[in-house]
């Protein structure tokens, strides 16, 4: 950390980050694509004339047409509408998993930095969790709780949480070394206030960068588990399971799997590009 007054660090650095990002054309493309996908997922369901769950067996696996822009799936449902709802579900799953991870991981990291006594036991627990590949969380929770929403969110959350805990502990420790923390303690502020208004307010930037990168992983894990049949169950529109449904008709109607998979890619790629840019900017600031 520099010897700047703490309040100036986030303000100054974020506008500098913003300027760097704007000079990066890849970033502009990424943000545009992501906005388009989010728009597609949020506005699409409102304007689509079709219901994602209305089956019409006589309309099975139709190629794209004026009425069905992307054709229909194996149950005769409008694929474009399924994808809109699917993208919404996938985005929500990613957000929910990441939010769960950020809340628990962030709390653990801050507590470990704030209370020296808790540091060792909490971080050893994190080491253990960090040693599990995310797919094992997915598999074991699906096996224990049955595949579905709860096991899925928990699996996503648990696989991302340890990383967030580490990052927030690191960020919080460097804030703890600042004079204003001692100052706050001396004037008798309660621990909760110190943690929220002093610690968190100054440590959140690196946590946010990490969370952005983790969101891409969260979406990929949700999609992979959905594809394996261990995530949300049909007929729920979710991109991974739409891709899996299309797999049975890969040679007659390849567009079903293709469109769902491509949409996942279009969500994850810009998020990862954004995360990389944030990380590079942060690295450059640090050096």
């Amino acid at each position, binding site marked *: 950390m520099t010897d700047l007054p703490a309040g100036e660090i986030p303000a100054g650095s974020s506008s500098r980050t913003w300027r760097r990002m704007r000079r990066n054309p890849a970033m502009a493309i990424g943000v545009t694509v992501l906005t388009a996908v989010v728009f597609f997922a949020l506005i699409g369901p409102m304007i689509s004339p079709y219901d994602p769950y209305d089956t019409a067996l006589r309309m099975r696996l139709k190629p794209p047409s004026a009425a069905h822009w992307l054709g229909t799936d194996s149950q005769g449902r409008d694929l474009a509408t399924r994808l809109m709802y699917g993208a919404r579900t996938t985005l929500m799953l990613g957000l929910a998993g990441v939010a769960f991870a950020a809340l628990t991981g962030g709390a653990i990291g801050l507590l470990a930095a704030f209370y020296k006594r808790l540091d060792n036991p909490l971080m050893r627990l994190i080491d253990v969790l960090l040693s599990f590949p995310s797919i094992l969380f997915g*598999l074991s929770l699906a096996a224990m709780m049955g595949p579905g929403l709860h096991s899925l969110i928990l699996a996503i959350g648990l696989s991302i949480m340890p990383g967030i805990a580490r990052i927030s502990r690191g960020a919080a420790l460097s804030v703890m070394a600042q004079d204003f923390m001692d100052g706050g303690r001396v004037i008798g502020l309660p621990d909760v206030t110190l943690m929220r208004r002093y610690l968190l307010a100054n440590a959140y930037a690196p946590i946010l960068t990490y969370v952005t990168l983790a969101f891409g992983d969260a979406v990929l894990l949700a999609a992979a588990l959905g594809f394996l049949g261990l995530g949300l169950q049909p007929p729920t529109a979710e991109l991974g399971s739409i*891709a899996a449904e299309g797999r049975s008709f890969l040679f007659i109607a390849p567009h079903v799997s293709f469109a769902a998979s491509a949409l996942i890619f279009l969500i994850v790629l810009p998020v990862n590009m954004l995360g990389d840019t944030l990380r590079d900017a942060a690295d450059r600031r640090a050096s």
Partner: protein
Amino acid sequence: MPGRLAHRLLVSIFVLLGVLLVGFLMLQVMPADPAAAIAGAQGTDAEIETIRRHLGLDKPVMVQFALYLSRVVQGDLGQSIINNASVFTEITRAAGPTLELMCAAMIWSLPLGLSLGITAALRRGGILDRVVMAISVAGVSIPVFWVGLLLVQLAASTRAFPIQGRGGAIWTIDGLPHVILPATALGLILLGPVARMTRTTLSDALNADHVRTARAKGAGPARVVLGHALRTALLPIITLVGLQVGALMGGAVVTETIFAWPGVGRLAVNAITTGDYPMAQGAILFLALAFIVVNIAVDILSELADPRLRSRT
């Protein structure tokens, strides 16, 4: 650094205990009575009672956990509810193919990732660097199953490679064509992270003092890059590969499912979707154990790769 290795071993013990607890819990939440499930539809009450006592299901939970541990240590992972097959036997049969697939994926992706990373580091900021970085970010953003499905479509239209199953050991004439597609899909997971890490660490190493000294002494460019710079850059790359084994495992589960590869990942997924709790428990236990062993091996490897770690006690 022996301290690091000791720390790793200590963590591993807890990880192992955690995994065993998960495996144990998986059998606890089994909706059916495990004893009745093992006895089968024709099982008499007396038989069920005998099995119950054999499994220790009449004892307190802690005792049951201890019994479970002792059974696992002896390689007794129970029987499948579906076909009564020994879980241990099924897993040993599936472990080979999974290992084959992972090795086949690494054989092409590690050297290629390293070369891409070296190219990018030497031409930092240039057009090649940008291309490599674009490949790298696209590689980590693409769902594995998409790559798998695209390969299936491509192979089906060209009839170049078989798209289902395993044709025998991968070094045989029958086996090799079968592994090409799944290994291609799986290796892609590793390519991006390895290229990226090589680029970062190698660019740092190229600016290090000892590399400048090597240049000053008149070492040729190939010797400077491969002998001096890459040598020091290797350590983070090895560590990264160890961490990526987890991602590789996740990819293997998906790839095995797409290509009907008879590995542990497919075994686990099938067991979970069919409600075969003992089989799921065994497969997950095995995958976790394999992950722990690989990571310990990586720690030992990194000490061998970097003498600076060995001398610093």
